[in-house]
């Protein structure tokens, strides 16, 4: 499989109390077409900083190279409340990705939005509502739908389920799994929940304090971890699952 993203020696530097601080340091990896690559790591290890740097949202303090082989990669954010414009209706929000490209007329846009709603299991009556009138799960479905409107080939999902409660989490994960199968889109899936990563991903990277400490096939990393940090993570996870 060809690569859809190549990241080389990527670092993200912030100034913390006037001292330089690397949220991401010297990270290199590839994402292949159509795969789900997991990025696991505890809170604050630099996962969001890495994804922001990859998509060019963060530019200051970023060094290294990022090569995209697919145009217009999209992102689903951690907090579904902040990723929808509070003063626009869902219908407007979902049309926006294909409206800014400007090559569809109104009827075609509406048709595509309705198609997408079916894909993410949302009712059409939602189109006339505002984001604050939706549940967390519905909002995240809307975010996923919006991210897919331009038919991207690569998507970053930054902890798309951590803000949701457990039953809704599994619904959204099922949805992502299904969409991945239907659309063949490559996903960089970020999570601090090892169980979720295990459920969804083909390969996995483990991040600690801004560095990728381990990367490989899911089974290898989970059952034959090399790095002591990964080992401790897996042991902790296993005792949790057994309970």
């Amino acid at each position, binding site marked *: 499989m060809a690569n859809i993203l190549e990241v080389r020696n990527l670092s993200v530097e912030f100034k913390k109390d006037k001292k330089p601080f690397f949220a991401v340091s010297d990270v290199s990896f590839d994402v292949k077409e159509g795969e789900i690559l997991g990025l696991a790591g505890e809170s604050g290890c630099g996962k969001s900083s890495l994804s*922001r740097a990859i*998509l060019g*949202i963060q530019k200051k303090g970023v060094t290294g190279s990022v090569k995209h082989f697919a145009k*217009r*990669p*999209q*992102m689903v*954010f*951690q*907090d579904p409340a*902040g*990723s*929808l*414009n*509070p*003063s*626009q209706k869902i219908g407007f929000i979902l049309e*926006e*990705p294909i409206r*800014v*490209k400007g090559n569809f007329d109104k009827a075609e846009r509406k048709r595509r939005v309705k198609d997408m709603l079916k894909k993410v299991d949302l009712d059409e009556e939602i189109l006339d509502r505002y984001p604050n009138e939706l549940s967390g799960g519905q909002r995240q479905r809307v*975010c996923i739908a*919006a*991210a897919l409107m*331009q038919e991207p080939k690569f998507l970053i999902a930054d902890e798309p389920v951590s803000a949701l409660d457990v039953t809704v989490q599994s619904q959204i994960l099922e949805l992502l799994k299904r969409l991945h199968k239907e659309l063949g889109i490559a996903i960089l899936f970020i999570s601090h929940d090892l169980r979720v990563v295990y459920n969804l991903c083909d390969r996995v990277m483990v991040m600690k304090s801004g560095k990728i400490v381990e990367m490989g096939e899911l089974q290898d990393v989970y059952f034959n971890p090399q790095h002591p940090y990964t080992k401790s993570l897996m042991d902790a996870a296993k005792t949790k699952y057994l309970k």
Partner: protein
Amino acid sequence: MDKTKTRNVKFILGLTLTGIILVMMIAGIVHTPYDPMAMDLSAKLEGVSFKHIMGCDNFGRDIFSRVLVGVRETMFVAAAVVFIGTFVGIIIGTVTGYFGGWVDEILMRFNDAVLAFPSVLLALLVIGIMGGGTKALIIALGIAFVPSFARIIRGEVLRIRNLDYIQCVRLYGASHLRIIVVHILPNLRTVLLSSVLIGFNNAVLAEAGMSYLGMGAQPPYPSLGLMLSEAQGVIYSNPWNAVFPGLVIVIMILGFSLLSDSLEKKT
């Protein structure tokens, strides 16, 4: 529960007071009992009566009629000042907040300079150049009001432009103009509403103050501040000359502040 109750009381009270002012303003436009500028020396400093419910001033002019027109004048100046302040403030605040960098540096330094400049001095300068009158006052106060609006808008734009939904729209490939106009400006309305109400209040006070100093409406045309200033000479013998225009200013300010208080953070 209790908080919403006081908020409702404030809202109703504010609405009532503002309502009174609006009725006076409309009366000032449509009909006044007497010609506010007509002098009647036989009625000079006449007291409160059914004929002149607020009495007459030093030139025998009906104070009630003058107050009605004065309200209109003050409201007009305040509205124009706030309009200039918000309009220019939105442009400067949005550009600096959104683009940042050296544009931000330069405009904000300029902003600070204007802010540090006493507005009375600024008004004197503009009025000196333009030769006084209402138009000069509006422009002078308008300029003085821009920085505070620009600062508020800039802060809000700075906050919004880093929100995730703006990043989403950016990833769709939307232009800066579209992001600003469609996705940022509509979300400024809550902040704008409260700052416009507060700004309106300050403008009312500033207009009254400037006219009091003789830098606004020119006699014999009435304005609330000017009437206060004219009442100064007879304050001991005929206090109502000052009391009524003063009272109306108080009602105006109180009404708007109660309204803006009750509307704040309601959303």
